[in-house]
């Protein structure tokens, strides 16, 4: 196996490690990859049938199959619905926000702009938009306007427009709900179908509560922190993540997750705080102590993957085809951690480049729907209809009821596609 040497600027920590290792081996000893590489361990873990569904990225099914044995399926769903709501919200704003609205658009879309603005954290626009949507959206509009009059507002105060049913570990929310409105378009008399992202938001909360009911309380806040929406707190206490929270996930261990969470609150200080415990922090610090060195991060993500594969082989006693699959989570994870640092530094463009590379690294079982939806949401905020829809589509079955996001994406794609100049098929 070809291991790449650390060969980039600012790599002083690497001088203490063998040339063929991306990070000191101690940093990956407790990784989930090495835990499951122990002989017999993977079979033991996979005795829980729900992992098959996690592997296939079908989290609604995983949540049901896990029941009360693990909160992982619900936790994934809680994160996915959050990013789906953000994707919907950005698609709505990119279609109907005041600078994009057309005279022929239904007047009621101002309600959707209000809800979308809440989800994206713009309460001023939300307050200015809600309460004037008119008859067809009247009850929902009034309910949202009402909750925003409170002195303090938390996203959890969102009005329960849809009756999802009682929260239960291993349960499923009511699937018969229809969050769409068929609004009359001015002049044409045709119908514009739009979807209310409130349902998606409620589903996120439902699954978060179900995850707690399934025993996720000790680790859930930290686990969910990277996926929270703008008005939610990301200040999560660092807590030990059990194997079922990490297995088939992008963080190799608790320290990686704590590191990315600390980046959001502490910025660069997180590099020093976690470089000795988190492999991602060690690499990101080496590659981005000053300016972010993209090539260094790309090289080191590959090197860490190779290092993990070699370590898994040693732990297992021989090569196993799953080892490369497992290591590919880390190949994408390093880049995503680097992107989080860029977020903290306000380097949006570099963050996006890293995420686009991470998208390509995290394929097959290492595909992470919540990450892809987050990237799609960012693209939608930039009115990138092509890539956001291409990112969403393969993930639409990851949890139940996500098809409603397509409704928002359809109106968005129509708007953007039709205002783009003439083109011919090739």
């Amino acid at each position, binding site marked *: 196996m*070809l291991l*790449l040497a650390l060969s980039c600027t600012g790599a002083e920590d690497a001088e203490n490690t063998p040339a063929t290792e991306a990070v000191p081996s101690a940093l990956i000893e407790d990784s989930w990859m090495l835990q499951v590489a122990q002989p017999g361990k993977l079979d033991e873990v*996979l005795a829980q049938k729900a*992992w*098959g569904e996690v*592997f*296939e*990225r079908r989290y609604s099914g995983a949540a049901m199959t896990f029941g009360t044995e693990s909160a992982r399926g619900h936790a994934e769903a809680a994160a996915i619905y959050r990013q789906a709501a953000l994707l919907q919200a950005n698609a709505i704003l990119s279609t109907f926000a005041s600078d994009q609205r*057309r005279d*022929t658009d239904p007047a009621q879309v101002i309600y959707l702009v209000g809800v979308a603005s809440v989800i994206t954290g713009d309460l001023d626009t939300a307050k200015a938009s809600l309460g004037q949507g008119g008859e067809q959206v009247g009850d929902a509009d009034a309910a949202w306007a009402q909750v925003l009059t409170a002195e303090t507002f938390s996203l959890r105060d969102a009005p329960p427009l849809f009756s999802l049913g009682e929260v239960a570990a291993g349960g499923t929310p009511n699937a018969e709900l229809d969050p769409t409105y068929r609004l009359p*378009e001015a002049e*044409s008399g*045709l*119908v*514009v179908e739009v979807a209310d992202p409130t349902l998606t938001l409620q589903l996120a909360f439902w699954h978060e509560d179900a995850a707690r009911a399934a025993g996720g309380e000790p680790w859930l806040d930290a686990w969910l922190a990277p996926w929270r929406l703008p008005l939610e707190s990301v200040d999560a206490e660092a807590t030990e993540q059990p194997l079922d929270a990490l297995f088939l996930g992008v963080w190799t261990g608790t320290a990686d997750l704590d590191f990315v969470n600390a980046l959001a609150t502490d910025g660069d200080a997180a590099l020093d705080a976690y470089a000795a415990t988190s492999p991602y922090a060690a690499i990101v610090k080496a590659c981005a102590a000053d300016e972010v060195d*993209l*090539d260094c991060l*790309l*090289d080191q993500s*590959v090197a860490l993957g*190779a290092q993990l594969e070699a370590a898994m082989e040693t732990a297992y006693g021989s090569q196993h*085809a799953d080892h490369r*699959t497992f290591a*590919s989570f880390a190949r994408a994870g390093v880049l995503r951690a680097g992107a989080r640092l860029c977020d903290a530094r306000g380097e949006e*463009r570099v963050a*996006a*480049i890293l995420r*686009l*590379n991470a*998208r*390509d*690294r995290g*394929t097959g*079982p290492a*595909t992470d729907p919540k990450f892809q939806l987050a990237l799609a949401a960012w693209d939608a905020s*930039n009115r*990138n209809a*092509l*890539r956001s829809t*291409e990112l*969403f*589509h*393969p993930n639409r079955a990851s949890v139940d009821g996500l098809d409603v996001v397509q409704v928002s*994406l*359809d*109106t968005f*794609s*129509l*708007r*953007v*596609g*039709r*205002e*783009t*100049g*003439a*083109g*011919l*098929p*090739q």
Partner: protein
Amino acid sequence: MMQNHKLLLSLSVVVGTLALSTGSTLNFYEESLPSSMNPMFAQSMVDNRVHELVFDRLYYFDPITNELTSRVVERWELADGGKAVKLFVKKGIRWQDGEALGADDVCFTINAMLDEGTPSPIAEKQRAVFSGCEVESKDTAVVQFTQIFHNPLNQLGFYVLPEHKFESTAIQPDDAFSNRPEGTGAYSGSMGRRGVTFGAKKNAHHEPRIGQLSLQEGGDPLVQVRTLLNNGVQGIVAVPPPYRADVSASDELSLKSYDLRSWWFVAVNQDKPYLKDKRVRQALNLILDRTDLREKSIGVKPGEQNSPCEFISGPFVQTSPYYNRSIDVQPRSDLEQAFVLLEQAGLTQTGGRWHYKGQPITLRIGMKAPLNNEAPDLLSQIGNQLSAGGFDRQEFRITVDDWNRQVLTGEAEDYDMVVGKWSFGLVEDVNPLFHTRNGGRGALNIFNYTNPQVDALLAQYQSAKTDTQARDAYHKLHEKLDDELPYLFLWKLDTKSAWRTEVRGNTIAPYYYWTAVDNWKYSP
């Protein structure tokens, strides 16, 4: 449970292809050679990608942030009450022959598109957008639109051509410029018989970091991947799905997403008497077993999750807002129903073969040759299925040249069916594919399909004032075409590239691919 990738090709495989010492030349495989270096006459995605290297579009979307920006326009102003924009061209930009780029070039390009003497389907489309262009000064052009657009700069995504290289605004496809183009892009292109070489051209607005690019025509995908592994080339623009696992299995290669809306079809020649009755076309649609075709040519197992290849029932990909989701796909064959339809249409079966008016039918099926690399053996598999359905058949691989010269121009009357692929970006205008050929419309109507109801729906789309009107027109079109079947719609196939990891900064722009080529680096 765990379906593991098999490393079919090891790094130590010795292959017949020489691992070339590449110096600072970046070699890559394309689907085929370009057919024209003149962007006014692009006929394939290969052409489009090449044009992105050699020319500048007036405005383009940043492939990372999607910001609408320009390399050649310094600033702009709305004019004529919003029905025009005044563009201030950047100073110091030079054409690759040293001439200065100016407002006259911008207006020349628009006037060339407006000139009815320019036989370009691309120009034909732009005539609905632009009404004129005036040079106000050396660096200032006023571009006039046919209507007020909400975001007018979005209309300015065309490639700028050099006025001094043409004798008139009536540009011809066989002009020498099509082989020896002059652009303001990051690279100059030189078309050879076996490839295209691109030399870096530093300019006021471009600073490419790779000295030379070499486009080679890709052949057998297995050889392409092995050559890439051996560093004989550094990239492959389109890696077929069956070979992607091999790319993913190597730390020296990276698989890159290329966001593109491509769908595959079998066009049916309704001028043939035995294909005129739509029940025959519906029967052919039922004879095709798409699941089997997909498995045998693309390698997708039945029931596979997140397949790169997704069936379609009409002329849009499933992610498109124009896709009518109430029209079901036809994943499996239904020979029983197909035979009922054929008999209703008056065909008779003798000796297991279908006959029309007493004569056995032999279907002549063609496929654009390079598609065989992306979907190996598809043509034969379609032939086999039609044969199993009782039709004799002859199969033909159509060269790119013949495809452009005969099929796209509606002169492929020798064929009964042709297998092809259309690719779209954000704009999903299918009017040129299905409109009756007349007055510049239906410019890509392969078998000159004509149907007044379809034309009416296409006209509704064309004249739609609102998004919903446009969507409704195309939803109805989808439904109509599912009944009429001028095409048998197959699938959307996603596109992935593969590049060696020594190639850096290689962001692939949706649809256009090379938009960010200035940032590409290669250190062998």
